[in-house]
């Protein structure tokens, strides 16, 4: 009789494991070559420590108690444990710290959604390097990582985590209304944003239009011009930050792989400034993400600017498989066309 495993977890058999390890190895070699040393942290941490990093309550999904009654939790991302490690174990090390990791994280799921409780992440943290240079180094490495696993069509979305927080401050929207609008923006629920914003006395027609327009602005450098036309101090500051990063990306010759996206928001509590998401045209899901977390190290007692990204190992694998399938399909239809011309081999 077959015994079950928890929903949202899975076993890996040799053929798949070989391919997953090949991806891990390709990424690891690239990160090593760029001076990122591998670290490991425990899967379980003190709940208070993770919550301190998250900067808000209710982080993580799996909590339990040890023999002495202390609350433990399974890590729900790798950045917080590594920030803790950097602030304590590596407190004496010379910044910038370049660290890489490969490990499992644990997230709660809704039943029957095909969501995974355990996800394998491969990523890096660059600690002690300021924006924009540190951000540019990170995005360059990210693009290199995507190329190293054959995903040369993948695109990096680049946004600014502070844009809407500062914009709502500028519009003097505070308290629960501010939180509700940020939740709508993060979900990109434009209908709800219009409804929430329409109900607020603080927001006039122009402010409401600005929020909706900004949340849909995505594309190349022209996006920043269009953003500046919408106006306001928060927009100007975010545009300047993004422009400085984008200039560095152009100089590095990788701006073509990066899409500016003013509507980008990520739901983790520690991001400041630049935030990243990774997309591949062959897959309907996000491959990974990251960003700057300039305040996180300070919460662990060693204030330093920092940034990082994480890629979902299984999704990289899925995207690889899809890209291979598509290119085989294209090759065979090309061959058919060629043999139709009487020039086929």
């Amino acid at each position, binding site marked *: 009789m077959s015994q079950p495993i928890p929903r949202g977890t*899975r076993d890996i058999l040799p053929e798949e494991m070989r391919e997953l390890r090949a991806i891990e190895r390709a990424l690891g070699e690239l990160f090593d070559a760029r001076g990122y040393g591998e670290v490991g942290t425990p899967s379980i941490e003190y709940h208070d420590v993770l919550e301190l990093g998250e900067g808000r309550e209710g982080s993580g999904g799996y909590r339990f108690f040890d023999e002495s009654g202390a609350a433990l939790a399974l890590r729900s991302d790798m950045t917080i444990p590594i920030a803790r490690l950097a602030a304590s174990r590596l407190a004496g090390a010379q910044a910038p710290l370049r660290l890489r990791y490969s490990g499992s994280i644990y997230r709660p799921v809704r039943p029957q959604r095909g969501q995974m409780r355990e996800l394998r992440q491969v990523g890096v943290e660059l600690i002690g390097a300021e924006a924009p240079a540190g951000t540019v180094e990170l995005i360059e490495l990210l693009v290199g990582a995507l190329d190293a696993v054959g995903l040369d*069509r993948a695109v990096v*979305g680049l946004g600014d985590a502070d844009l809407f927080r500062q914009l709502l401050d500028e519009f003097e929207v505070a308290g629960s209304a501010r939180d509700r609008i940020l939740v709508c923006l993060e979900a990109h629920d434009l209908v709800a944003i*219009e409804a929430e914003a329409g109900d607020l006395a603080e927001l006039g027609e122009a402010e409401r239009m600005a929020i909706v327009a900004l949340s849909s602005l995505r594309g190349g450098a022209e996006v920043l011009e269009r953003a500046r036309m919408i106006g306001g101090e928060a927009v100007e500051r975010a545009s300047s930050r993004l422009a400085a990063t984008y200039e560095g990306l152009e100089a590095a010759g990788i701006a073509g792989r990066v899409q500016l996206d003013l509507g980008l928001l990520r739901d983790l509590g520690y991001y400041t400034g630049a935030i990243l998401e990774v997309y591949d045209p062959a897959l309907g899901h996000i491959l990974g993400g990251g960003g700057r977390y300039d305040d996180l190290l300070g919460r662990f007692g060693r204030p330093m600017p920092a940034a990082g990204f994480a890629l979902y190992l299984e999704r990289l694998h*899925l995207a690889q498989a899809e890209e291979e399938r598509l290119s085989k399909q294209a090759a065979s239809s090309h061959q058919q066309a060629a043999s139709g011309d009487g020039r086929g081999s």
Partner: protein
Amino acid sequence: MNPASVQAATPREAGGPLRLALPRGSLFEPCLDMLDRAGFATAEPRGDSRALIFDLGELSVVTVRPSDVPTYVEAGAADLGITGKDVLIEQSDRAVYELADLGFGRCRMVLAARAGSDQLGEAERRLGSMRIATKYPRTADAFFEAAGRQAEVIEVKGSVELAPLVGLADGIVDLVDTGRTLADNGLEVVDEISVCTARLLANRVAHKLRVDEIDAMVERLREAAA
């Protein structure tokens, strides 16, 4: 590839026409009317063909159950989709972008009970809790929780109106258009939970990677819906 490994992938060509998931059922006609006004030829999907995929030139249309639309869009099997807000409220954890309120298909999500009876109130007073039959268990749970009332929500798949008539439940939470079905079964609206219209959804990755096509199509559909 193991299909259970991560949520479904998108097995299709990049660069083809945008794929739009349309809901079969009461929203289907108004959706096709909107596509007509947007300049698409909809004779084929209107016909009695059993086909599920239709080529409308700049759009490829797939027809699915209304409650399946978010599933297809979330996985990227469709770039865009249209379904009722009732479906989106029930599946509020879906990672899809809700881009526009198309305005048509207006219905109300209501709490209803037998007309002229105080069955709900009596159950609440004497038993501390109501039994509520619904096709929308999460919507019902959220409504009663927000109202601070106790209810035992019983999920049924169809003919919800029957439940209070035969003693399965004290009341129902259901989507109501004209209210005729309620009246025919001797039920009346006790409370309105929300007003639901057709919404236009987009897959997150398609929204990021096919910017100009998506933005132009959304504008075109939004104008045709107005």
